[in-house]
């Protein structure tokens, strides 16, 4: 049996190795527990539990929400395993309920938006790999701002927090579908010269209205306007809902579609480019 050096067979060294192993194991468990505390993996899995049919019907719903009738999310009464005998109501996963929000579509739409703008910029001859990163950061800022608006609204209007933060993130991502459609149609028609022109604005207006209608439909279910709440607060909530859905979304969608790269840097139409600020 070849001896490869006494120090590995040394009992002290072996003990040190054991301690190192157990320390690493404890560290891993600690990290995993805290990771699960910040990002609830099983809750997130609920949002990705989608099927082909759901994705298709939901995408059509975002773009054509006009005739959709029942907006309420289905609930099931399941026997809760922890309490004896009592039932908890849970919302059905997206696979079984087309009204349930999911995170697959918003995430895919977000990434498609980044790639599509970069591709169109490239077809205009303005490609550089930094564009991928810049567009990604820009769109992330939009998402974060929107979450901030929603969170503040929820805080100030004292809306009961039945809706979790994940639902809000999911809803805020649906506008990317409309933005993608706008950019794609405008690129095809305008030959990539930007989203100006009457075609671009028409499609933008349409997708914006569709998105707003969709959000109002969904949100009126999320924040149920019950009759037990005081009249003043109910009207405030309704106002917030409409202001949010129409005005705020308009601003964000305009920001996302107005990034045109025809001058070589991402420039909001009429604004100063990044190059101007950093002078590079």
């Amino acid at each position, binding site marked *: 049996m*070849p001896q*490869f*050096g006494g120090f590995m067979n040394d009992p002290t060294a072996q003990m040190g190795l054991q301690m190192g192993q157990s320390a690493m194991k404890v560290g*891993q468990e600690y990290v995993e527990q805290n990771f699960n505390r910040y990002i609830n993996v099983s809750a997130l*899995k609920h949002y*990705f539990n989608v099927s082909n049919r759901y994705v298709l019907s939901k995408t059509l719903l975002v773009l054509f929400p006009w005739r959709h009738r029942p907006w309420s999310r289905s609930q099931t009464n399941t026997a809760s395993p922890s309490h004896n005998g009592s039932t908890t109501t849970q919302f059905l996963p997206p696979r079984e309920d087309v009204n349930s929000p999911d995170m*697959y579509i918003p995430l895919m739409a977000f990434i498609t938006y980044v790639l599509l703008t970069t591709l169109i910029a490239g077809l205009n001859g303005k490609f550089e790999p930094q564009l*991928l990163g810049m567009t990604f950061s820009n769109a992330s800022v939009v998402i974060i701002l929107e979450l901030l608006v929603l969170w503040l609204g929820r805080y100030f209007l004292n809306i009961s927090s039945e809706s979790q933060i994940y639902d809000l993130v999911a809803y805020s991502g649906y506008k990317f579908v409309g933005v993608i459609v706008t950019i794609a149609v405008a690129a095809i028609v305008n030959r990539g010269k930007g989203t100006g022109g009457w075609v671009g604005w028409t499609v933008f207006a349409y997708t914006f209205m569709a998105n707003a209608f969709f959000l109002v439909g969904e949100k009126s279910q999320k924040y149920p306007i019950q009759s037990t709440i005081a009249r003043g607060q109910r009207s405030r909530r309704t106002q917030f809902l409409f202001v949010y859905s129409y005005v705020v979304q308009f601003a964000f969608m305009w920001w996302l579609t107005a990034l045109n790269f025809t001058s070589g840097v991402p420039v909001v139409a009429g604004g100063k480019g990044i190059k101007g600020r950093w002078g590079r």
Partner: protein
Amino acid sequence: MASYGYQPNPAPQPQSSYSAQNNLNFYQSSYPQQPVSGHSTPFQAAYGAGTQSNAYGASGTANYGFGAFPAQAGASGQMGTGQSGLRTGWLAAFGTEGYEGEPPLLEELGVNFGHIQMKTLTVLNPVARIDQNIMDDADLAGPFLFCALFGTFLLLSGKLWFGYVCGLAALGAFSLNFIFSMMSPPLSQDEMNAAQSQHYGGSSHLSSTLTLGRSSSVLGYCLLPLVFASLLGVLLPLDSLIGYIVVSLAIAWCTYSSSAMFCVVGRMTNMRGLVAYPLALFYVGFGIMAIFSSRGTGRIDAMKAVT
């Protein structure tokens, strides 16, 4: 499992039962000695049986190969010249022999060319049926090679974009692993226990059969058609119509094979379209870099000159 780099070996028994029953020892050894007690490399099979100290000796040798212990073999002071098994003499100094019973270098590094070739052929053959255990020894040697080749062909086209290729690959691997872990059905409890015992202090599985290593491995292997497309881009400008067609075909091929692998490994076979779309986006990113790296037909430069 040599593919996981430096990993202290616990008692071999739990490993052997899990790996043997799940056919994780995918490496069908051509060596005369079959693996014993769960060790997958023939060296460990030959020398690793027996007492615990021998196992540490074996793993200690493997660790020397990885350079995990800075101390050399003579640290304990018991080694004299030649006593450890090294042959002395000027002929041996120029030879490639090492210690007695040392495993071959590639085996120590976990580079298994047979597996790499098998996986590459699986990617290249669109009608191949994919074994569920093909990615159990997820190695990254092939993927690194393909990414480096991709970057090299882009360099030969005139653009030094290794950093962007690397960044896109890393970002895509992380996010795709996350998405597919979320989309795959959750692990049953005994699968979870078995995985925990095998991965000593291992990665957080996110309750799925996919780990970051496996996802990266699949993504890297399926990048091969785009490597061919970028090779073509060295010769002819990809900015033309034929270039678009070639790159689109390559992206479709990549997506087809990687979605097949992910569906099999992640057990999501009824969601293949949903699995394919993020993969398509990932490879479109690479395709964009391939197309716009070429010297082009002069159309792009002309447009740049105008504005």
